[in-house]
């Protein structure tokens, strides 16, 4: 996964490049998103919308985590807002924020030309691989809380990590078959590079009739207030209680064969854990124990979800059924 946010300054302008996309202005944050959506929609991806829950990474979206389980094919792309309370810097660090955006592409089974398709998306953004040094640098991914791991790369452009590329091998403790290919773009980092700015807050989000709207216009105050909340005011006792309650609820829902709401409980518990972490409310030993509790829930949810899909005879395996997933 893209860790945190664009930790390292993106590069410079690339005036020599001509944006290949005529429709959208990739030099705005929204133009970047629109270009990626357009590109991946043309690649046959269903455009999902963000999950309406707080998550630490796009992988938590059911369109990634749950869809990677079982034999049914899946092709989707979506923006996911992510929250990493510990990465907050009160809006004072130009490279670190606690709320940011990832663009995820999930292809199952991973197509043979997945790398070429990804490189196509860079070309759509105006990045010429004969000008810029694009590399696939080994980086294997593991999420202890999700019981998941995969092999893949960070994608480097002129030495900067711009994406993460993973072939999921295991999710929720279950071996993946077929394999899901996951591509995650760190949008702010990519945008800082394309727009040639040094601070996230200087990114142009959009050009509106009332003038240029920057990332800072929208989120600087949010970073200040949310950092204050995350580090100083998040109610520890309540969060601890909440964690325990959500864990129990998750297990109860599994018993009722309701893996989807059970998964939501897991996501919420995970967010409570992240906040507790930001409040330094969890000691090192306890931390490991909490991670193990989340991992146990992930495994149970994954198995329950698989069982449910199996009971439904894996409906999307039938070519006649074009419905989106449940």
């Amino acid at each position, binding site marked *: 996964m893209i860790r945190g946010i664009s*930790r*390292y*300054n*993106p*590069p*410079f302008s*690339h005036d*020599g490049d001509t944006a290949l996309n005529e429709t959208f202005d990739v030099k705005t944050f929204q133009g970047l998103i629109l270009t990626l959506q357009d590109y991946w929609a043309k690649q046959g991806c269903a455009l999902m919308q963000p999950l309406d829950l707080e998550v630490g990474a796009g992988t938590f979206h059911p369109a990634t985590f749950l869809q990677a389980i079982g034999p049914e094919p899946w092709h989707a792309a979506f923006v996911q807002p992510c929250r990493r309370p510990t990465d907050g810097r009160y809006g004072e660090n130009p*490279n670190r924020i606690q709320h940011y955006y990832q663009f995820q592409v999930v292809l199952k*089974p*991973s*197509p*043979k030309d997945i*790398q070429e398709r990804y490189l196509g998306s860079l070309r759509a953004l105006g990045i*010429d*691989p*004969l*000008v*810029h*040094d*694009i*590399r*696939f*640098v*080994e980086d*294997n991914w593991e999420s202890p809380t999700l019981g998941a791991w*995969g*092999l893949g*790369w960070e994608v480097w*452009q*002129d*030495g*900067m990590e711009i994406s993460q590329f993973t*072939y999921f*091998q295991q999710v929720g403790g279950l071996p*993946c*078959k*077929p*394999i899901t*290919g996951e591509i995650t773009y760190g949008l702010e980092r990519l945008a800082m*590079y394309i727009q040639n700015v040094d601070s996230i807050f200087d990114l142009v989000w959009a050009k509106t009739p009332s003038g240029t709207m920057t990332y800072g216009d929208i989120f600087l105050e949010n970073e200040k207030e949310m950092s204050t909340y995350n580090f100083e005011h998040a109610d520890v006792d309540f969060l601890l209680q909440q964690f325990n309650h959500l864990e129990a609820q998750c297990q109860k829902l599994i018993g009722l064969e309701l893996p989807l709401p059970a998964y939501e409980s897991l996501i919420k518990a995970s967010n409570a854990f992240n906040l507790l972490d930001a409040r330094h409310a969890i*000691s*090192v*030993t306890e931390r490991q124990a909490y991670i193990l509790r989340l991992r146990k829930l992930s495994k149970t949810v994954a198995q329950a979800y698989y069982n449910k899909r199996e009971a439904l005879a894996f409906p999307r395996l039938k070519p006649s059924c074009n419905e989106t997933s449940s």
Partner: protein
Amino acid sequence: MTTNDFLVEILTEELPPKALLTLATSFHEQLIQGIRLAGLSFATSCFYATPRRLAVHIEALETQQEAQTIERKGPSLAAAYDKEGNPSKAALGFARSCGIDLSETTTTQTDKGEWLFYQTTAPGKTAFELLPALVEQALAHLPVPKVMSWGDSQHTFVRPVHHVLMMFGEKTVDATLFGLPATNTTYGHRFHHPEKISLKHPRDYRAALKNAHVIADFDERKTLIQQQIQTLAKKQKAKAVISDALLNEVTSIVEWPNALLGQFDQQLLQVPKEALTLAMESHQKSFSLTDTQGNLLPQFITVSNIESKEPKQVIHGNERVMAARLSDAEFFFETDKRIPLAERVEKLQAVIFQKQLGTLAEKVSRVTALTAAITEQMQGDVALAKRAGELSKADLVTDMVGEFPELQGVMGRYYAHNDNEPEEAALALDELYMPRFSGDQLPTSKTGQALALADRIDTLVGIFGINKPPTGSKDPFALRRAALGVLRIIIEKQLDLDLRELFALSAELYGDKIQHEHLIETCLTFCNDRLKHWSQEQGIPPSVFAAVAAKKIGKPYDIQQRLDAVNAFMQLPEATALAAANKRVHNILSKQGGAAINTVDFNLLEEDAEKILAEKLAEKTKSIAPLNYQDTLFALADLQQPIDRFFDDVMVMVDDEKIKHNRLALLGSVQRLFGRVADVSLLVK
């Protein structure tokens, strides 16, 4: 014998760079081993390795196995024909099973009689037929760190496989690997030459790929990168720091190398050079530059995988990333310095060393006590040792070490220096981790040595005390490395320290957190096993080690001196006979239930041989007292003749109990004399 060239190439997605060379060499070795086992000879062979390909080229490979001789034995002659000479069913059946007429069989004579026999030759298989299975076997035996699946393919490999080339001479080998049919084609550089390349002959591979912007040969690419780096550095009148590991890694991530020079702000050189180098080398896979005095310069060299249309853009991009990384390090360094190390110690209460063994804060207090005790024995500065001990893990809770864990200890030294801690205490914080790897330098200061020993001894005793010894390849607490570190420091720094004593002290500091039974001997045995390995690597024979180990000594430096002495003694002409004599002494005495401690009564000596031996022994006992181990053994060498004569002339087990015991006492003192150094009886081969 007709021959032809063979070429196989597996085209994949980007392979793990640190595994690439091992994968490629092992593919090569496995394949030629398989080919040899199949009885096919060849002239030469080589491998190619790039981030996206593993290939092997075999020159002048025999096209066919030699004809195979097939021998078959049938029924005995008696069972083959009846008295009239008519063939039996068994004989006819044998002929039929060989696919011949009975008249074509011969006979063979064995010691059990005469038998029907058939000998023929079958043509050998062709290389063309054999190669697919040989390649498949070689690939199946690769030491893949982690295999993966992709798509909905049933196949697994290091990374997804895209294309297979397999040619024997001008022909494409009829094979399917990873579900892909073998071809006589491949593809060039991902960006410069994505088009298909057709080969006419295996020998064209290297040149065809070079035309397609791929330098397939690993060493050629490595040399080229090195030259490019040195050329760039020379232009700057600078020296590039090129470690072989980094050079191999970089060679493993590019097919068409282009070295580029980048700069960063001079200001960032204030950051400790270890942090700068780490960010440059391990994070950005770039090479650092120094002036002729070895001082870092604000420059770096990165190796791109393309010949960019606008190299300035690639340089600029890398400079921006590097600046950000280094500024991060600078930021951590500056903010860390605001809180003195001494104030950070408290934070270690929240960090777990090991679940059953408690927090790092607890470890630090044990290590401090142990460091002080060791320093006292070394006649060092105890106050200094205590200070170093107290601060020893504080840098683990700094932002810099949080971000760059490899800098533990190094940052401790910088921060302690910044806090105006005593210089030797600061140095010890870094030396604590030495030796960091096999063959690494050792702590130079007394405080550093004591601290390095205390930290490792505490870990050894603690982990053995909760019964989590290393098993097989699993050694999560790196106890083997810890033990070897302890031994190297004590031996190479010639410290007169007794591990038994130190283990006991450490165990005491743990209190009831650990299980104490047999603990000290377990730890000592573990260390001595490492020492055995180590001494064998230094060329000391196992029998010499056994002779010294029998003394069950806890002082590694003492053991080392004895090992050297016995090893030198073994070169003497008298050694073999003396060892044998000692063994004889040992056997006689052990039959008597161990050594008799009686002193020799000179009045009871009867024979000349025993009188001479007794005198000689008395003289030696006095003369060797001040000698070191080697001189002792050398001085004892001239006992060979008197001892041998004693055994020739004197009967030990006589009926007269008094005389018998006197003679046993004589033998006892032989044993004791040699035993001052080692159990020489164990040197008998």
